[in-house]
């Protein structure tokens, strides 16, 4: 059946058709939908793990037991999963195992622009790179075949434009694959003696995979019509941009496998073209390989290492004229993303900003607290870094710093890698104040369950981590819960905990307003006779409140009636309808 699917859904379908039985993942844009789509199949097991390392090791366990498995993550998640990755390269697999990793060139929703292909090279693990949804589905099946034939985990590398673009896909049927489990200490116990014996296997495997890459159908030459004296080596979405600009007129070596890279295939292609361009987003992986095998190519001197490409990038690089378009004289104000109207994080940030507290932040919707007018954050690095970071910040700064610094971290991020930082605070005793912004969901990636929500990926009842008990059990004696809609309560808690001579945790708890079970109240409205235009409410940064003709106005399509703004107005101008 032919249907339009985003790359992530097609990849999930491919994993399913290939007989994948177990998927364990941590959500992260642009990878999240692979796992969400896979969870819709009934005859498989699928879960959200607390982090990518756990997910990868869970998938490894399933492979060891004899079932095809996968784990999915965004590029920075692979940093977390890097530890098992490098040694799984040595152990290899029993049943096939696929690691799906999604890069985010252009940083639509990420904190850096790292190129995951480096991991494939460094860990000596093969990597396939689809260029559209159909390839995502097909490559999943090929990945499992490679995994079992060559005894290795296999990467499938997505990027935002493949992961989140819909194109037409033909789906197929599922096949079941199962391997017996047999104890094999020399393969699976990576103590030095065994690992020393496995390393040569890894090198031999790479040599064999290079042979495979020379003739694999997924690395293909598309001959041009002779109108150009140059050829192009490319992969992934860059291939689509090349085809958009040149159609079938130029010769292209389209690489579906980006590690290991072929040698003779590239040399032969270069021999047939006067000049060879390598067009790849982010880092010069293919280019460096070409140069290392003595093939002169033009790459990053013409095509940037920054951001995404497009047909325009390619056209310009080849000196083709820009298309005629319209430009306006008026500047259009930017529209950055922001916390939603009624977002529970806003109340806590308002209190922190008002008291001029230094705030070390973390990864999630609440990173948006860094935006004006709240400007509430001082630092955001990576998952969990707020909790570990505040410990170092306070150790360096001493008691003066401890009394005016907090860190903020979401419930899901705390489960991911915040708790280890908290253990360090409790163990090595800094008087740090940790605020867990518990909105009872993984928000930014589009509402995934996590270990604190009590529900699993399918929305069924599951185990539930009790945050208060967890914090106490690692050694934090001062743990309190506040409602971020109650600004007075928040302010009191923050100031009291900062003043204490011991580490403390404040759990700022209220569910995300976008959750279905959170019922919006009627929008507030402004009593214009009372509003004096003082703009105090503007400091709250709620998108539902704006200022027109000397008064505050409320957009009733956005306001969810949380009423927190009413408490900020000295003239009681915010009025709620009697329900």
């Amino acid at each position: 059946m032919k249907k339009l699917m985003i790359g992530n859904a097609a990849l999930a379908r491919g994993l399913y058709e290939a007989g994948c039985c177990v998927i364990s993942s941590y959500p992260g844009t642009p990878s999240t939908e692979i796992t969400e789509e896979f969870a819709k199949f009934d005859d498989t097991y699928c879960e959200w793990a607390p982090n990518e390392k756990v997910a990868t090791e869970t998938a490894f366990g399933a492979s060891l037991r004899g079932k095809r498995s996968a784990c999915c993550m965004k590029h920075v998640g692979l940093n977390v999963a890097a530890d098992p990755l490098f040694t799984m390269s040595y152990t290899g697999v029993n049943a096939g195992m696929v690691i799906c990793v999604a890069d985010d060139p252009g940083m639509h929703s990420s904190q850096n622009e790292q190129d995951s292909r480096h991991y494939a090279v460094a860990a000596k693990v093969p990597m396939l790179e689809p260029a559209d949804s159909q390839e995502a589905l097909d490559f999943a099946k090929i990945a499992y075949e490679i995994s079992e034939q060559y005894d290795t985990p296999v990467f499938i590398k997505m990027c935002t434009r493949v992961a989140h673009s819909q194109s037409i896909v033909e789906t197929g049927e599922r096949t079941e694959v199962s391997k017996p489990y047999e104890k094999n200490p020399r393969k699976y116990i990576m103590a030095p003696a065994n690992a020393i014996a496995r390393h040569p296997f890894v090198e031999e495997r790479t040599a064999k995979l290079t042979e495979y890459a020379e003739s694999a159908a997924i690395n293909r030459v598309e001959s041009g019509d002779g109108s150009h004296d140059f050829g192009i080596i490319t992969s992934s979405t860059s291939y689509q941009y090349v085809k958009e600009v040149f159609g079938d007129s130029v010769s292209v070596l389209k690489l579906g496998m980006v590690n290991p890279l072929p040698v003779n295939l590239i040399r032969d292609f270069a021999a047939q073209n006067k000049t060879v361009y390598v067009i790849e987003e982010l880092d010069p992986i293919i280019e460096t390989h070409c140069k290392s095998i003595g093939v002169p190519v033009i790459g990053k001197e013409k095509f940037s290492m920054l951001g995404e490409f497009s047909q325009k990038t390619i056209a310009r690089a080849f000196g083709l004229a820009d298309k005629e378009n319209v430009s306006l004289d008026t500047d259009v104000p930017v529209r950055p993303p922001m916390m939603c109207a009624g977002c529970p994080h806003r109340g806590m940030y308002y209190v922190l900003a008002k008291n001029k507290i230094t705030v070390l932040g973390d990864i999630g919707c609440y990173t948006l607290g860094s935006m004006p007018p709240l400007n509430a954050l001082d630092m955001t690095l990576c998952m969990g870094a707020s909790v570990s970071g505040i410990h170092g910040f306070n150790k360096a700064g001493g008691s003066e710093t401890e009394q005016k610094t907090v860190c903020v971290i979401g419930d899901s991020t705390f489960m991911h890698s915040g708790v280890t930082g908290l253990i360090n605070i409790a163990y090595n005793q800094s008087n740090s104040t940790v605020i867990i912004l518990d909105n009872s969901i993984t928000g930014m990636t589009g509402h995934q369950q996590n270990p604190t929500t009590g529900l699993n990926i399918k929305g069924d009842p599951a185990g539930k981590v009790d945050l208060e008990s967890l914090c106490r059990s690692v050694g934090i004696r001062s743990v309190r819960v506040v409602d971020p809609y109650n600004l007075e309560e928040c302010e009191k808690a923050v100031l009291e905990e900062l003043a204490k001579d011991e580490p403390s945790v404040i759990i700022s708890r209220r569910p995300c307003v976008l959750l279905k079970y959170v019922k919006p109240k009627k929008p507030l409205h402004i009593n214009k006779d009372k509003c004096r235009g003082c703009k105090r409410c503007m400091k709250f940064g709620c998108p539902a409140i704006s200022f027109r003709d000397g008064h505050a106005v409320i957009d009733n399509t956005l306001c969810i009636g949380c009423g927190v703004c009413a408490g900020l107005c000295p003239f009681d101008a915010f009025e709620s309808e009697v329900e």
Partner: protein
Amino acid sequence: MATKNIMIVGVGGQGSLLASKLLGRLLVDEGFDVKVSEVHGMSQRGGSVVTYVRFGDRVCSPVIEEGEADFIVSFEKIEAARYVRNLRKGGTVIVNTQQIDPMPVIIGNAVYPENILDEMCSKGVNVDAIDALELASQAGSAKACNIVLMGRLAKYFDIPYEKWEAAIEKCVKPNFININKEAFRLGYNH
């Protein structure tokens, strides 16, 4: 057929994903090669969002670049202006006249350009402005703005009305089919 390019732009949370789903479904059923590209995650939190819909005999790139869009369907006034550089010469902007202040305007760091649609007209852009919020409310839900605009867009295509209705039935939850069909009708007949 040469590839046709439609951009759907607006503010995160306005329902552009349903509009692109509807278009994608319709165009696949019509037998075209189709690509639809959208961005999830951070930008959905009230930020400026853009979806690219491309269809024709063979579509390669999933994105629409400057000077390439045949249509820009905008859910908000200044979002139309933000992406008008992507419009080809002679292209059409279908725009909901709703004004949603971005945060820099709310906090007084920027001014909302009131006459932006007039400026677009003066630059030769075909501007088809419509109060989609009002029409959606008439249809029974302010959230149906997206489908009002799809109704307006349908005027510019040779695809029969019934096919659009069939696509709505396939893409919308059963409880909301009637509201959305009415929203589509109001946009189409406006």
